[in-house]
């Protein structure tokens, strides 16, 4: 028991700090990648290659004056950044980030809390984050902030469904919601991205919307809403929203890596998942997990600096008219396919089943791309049948 408490406390401390440092570096990465994509250099003055820029930004935010609007609801105004910040950090707790670490006192699983409810917990907690945004929008007593908050809640609800549904595909295949079990299944055979390609794409798009990133950053939409829900915030309160946004990104990327790309699994070898745990294995798998997460984080940034923002009706149309029917249809097809392969043919999850489902996904993907390519995602301001 003491061992569990001590090791958990150490893990919480380390993971919290890693995420904070990661978020700080991510803000720098965002700015530098953005600059590179625009043929600029970006911030490179503070420290070597600008590595200390986030520290300078943080210091600036600490020292800035904290403004509070006269007509704002003080309690909620203060509460909102906290409500936004805490769930963003809580969600990472159930994601396994490396192979178990052997110590003198016993083997430590490299996950803060290996909850049996796994990503149901993530879905539950991450949707709490929207309260922070809505409260911020409401308590600021500012029209723009309120509009931002309203948009955020509508967007979160719309895309939460597609996000949740796309993870149903993972449940169907893995038969388990515990993330360590999901990873173990992927280690035995193929990563779930092959048998569940379409689910991954839907998950990716919904995750962009859930984390309020471009092309779905309508709650912020600086062009139309100044800065949306955090218009009235300054200093460290603003910084907390900022950190929450980026740590949501980290969690979403880590979750994508876990659910669809094998988590901390090193591809093409079973060295990492079999045999005795060792320090080398832990470090190697940690590096691989970090790399996978980084790839998704980079994609987030890449997408942000490429795509323009959706109009509000386009956002809703994409969520309700494209993604939701699509994911429902996909789950139905997938359930039938899994039933057929598992019950009729009697296969367990292995390379054979993965490739069969992968083939099905490829066909679906081609049909989907062909169908979506007919001008269905972005349309005029009036639905085509009504025009």
């Amino acid at each position, binding site marked *: 028991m003491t061992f569990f408490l001590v090791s958990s406390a150490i893990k919480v401390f380390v993971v919290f700090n890693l995420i904070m440092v990661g978020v700080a570096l991510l803000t720098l990465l965002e700015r530098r*990648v953005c600059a590179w994509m625009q*043929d*600029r250099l970006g911030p490179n003055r503070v420290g070597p290659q600008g590595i200390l820029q986030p520290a300078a930004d943080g210091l600036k935010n600490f020292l800035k004056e904290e403004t509070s609007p006269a007509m704002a609801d003080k309690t909620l105004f203060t509460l909102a950044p906290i409500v936004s910040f805490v769930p963003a950090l809580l969600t990472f707790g159930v994601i396994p980030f490396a192979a178990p670490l052997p110590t003198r006192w016993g083997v430590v699983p490299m996950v803060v809390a290996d909850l049996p409810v796994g990503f149901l917990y993530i879905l539950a907690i991450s949707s709490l984050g929207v309260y922070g945004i809505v409260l911020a929008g409401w308590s600021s007593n500012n029209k723009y902030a309120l509009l931002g908050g309203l948009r955020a809640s509508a967007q979160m609800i719309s895309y939460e469904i597609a996000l949740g549904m796309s993870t149903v595909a993972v449940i169907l295949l893995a038969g388990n919601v515990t993330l360590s079990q999901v990873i173990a299944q992927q280690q035995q055979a193929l990563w779930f991205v092959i048998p569940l390609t379409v689910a991954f794409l839907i998950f990716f798009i919904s995750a962009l919307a859930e984390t309020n990133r471009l092309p779905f950053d309508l709650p912020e939409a600086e062009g139309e809403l100044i800065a949306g829900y955090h218009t009235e915030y300054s200093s460290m309160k603003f910084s907390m929203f900022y950190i929450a946004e980026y740590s949501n990104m980290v969690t979403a990327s880590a979750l994508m890596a876990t659910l669809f790309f094998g988590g901390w699994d090193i591809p093409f070898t079973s060295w990492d998942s079999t045999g005795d745990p060792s320090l080398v294995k832990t470090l190697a798998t940690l590096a691989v997990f970090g790399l996978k997460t980084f790839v998704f984080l980079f994609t987030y940034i890449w997408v942000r600096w490429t795509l323009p923002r959706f109009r509000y009706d386009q956002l809703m149309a994409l969520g309700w008219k494209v993604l939701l029917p699509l994911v429902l249809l996909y789950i139905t097809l997938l359930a039938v396919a899994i039933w057929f392969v598992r019950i009729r043919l009697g296969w367990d999850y292995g390379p054979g089943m993965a490739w069969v489902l992968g083939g099905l996904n490829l066909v679906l993907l081609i049909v989907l*791309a062909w169908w979506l390519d007919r001008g269905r*995602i972005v349309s*005029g*301001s009036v639905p085509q049948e009504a025009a």
Partner: protein
Amino acid sequence: MPIGVKVMKRPIKQTSYLRATLKGMALTFSHLLRPKVTMQYPEEKSSKDWTLSSRWRGTHRMLTDEQGRAKCVACGLCPQICPANCIKLVPGEDEEGNRYPLIYEIDEFRCIFCGYCQEVCPEEAIHVGVHYENSEYSRDRFVYDLERLTAQTHPVSTLWDPSDPKGE
């Protein structure tokens, strides 16, 4: 529907969001690896694409003769022509009858950097310079006296030459 908007029928190539997205992603990624256009100012002051023009009219410089004295003969043409009235000149005369400036001051805050003083100067003494880094800690440091003007070392402007209007 409250307002009818005419939706143009366009070929699929133009309305495809998927293709446009992929194309855009490829474009931004290719830019990621291209050479950057930023000039790192304090370290780099000119690049192969950009240098300060030799006709740049910056803060002044007074040229000197072999003895190190200012070439100025205090003829009074530059304060006369100066549209901003920023040159203060008090002429003096030595025993041999040579005129020289007792006081020669240019208020760089008033100066509009038209370069007329250089153009009008018969002795080619006062010049506008190819120079732009002039920061100081107090305002009165921007009134350049004769000593300061002669001490400047930056290159002088070539101004616009009517016989070579394009600067070739």
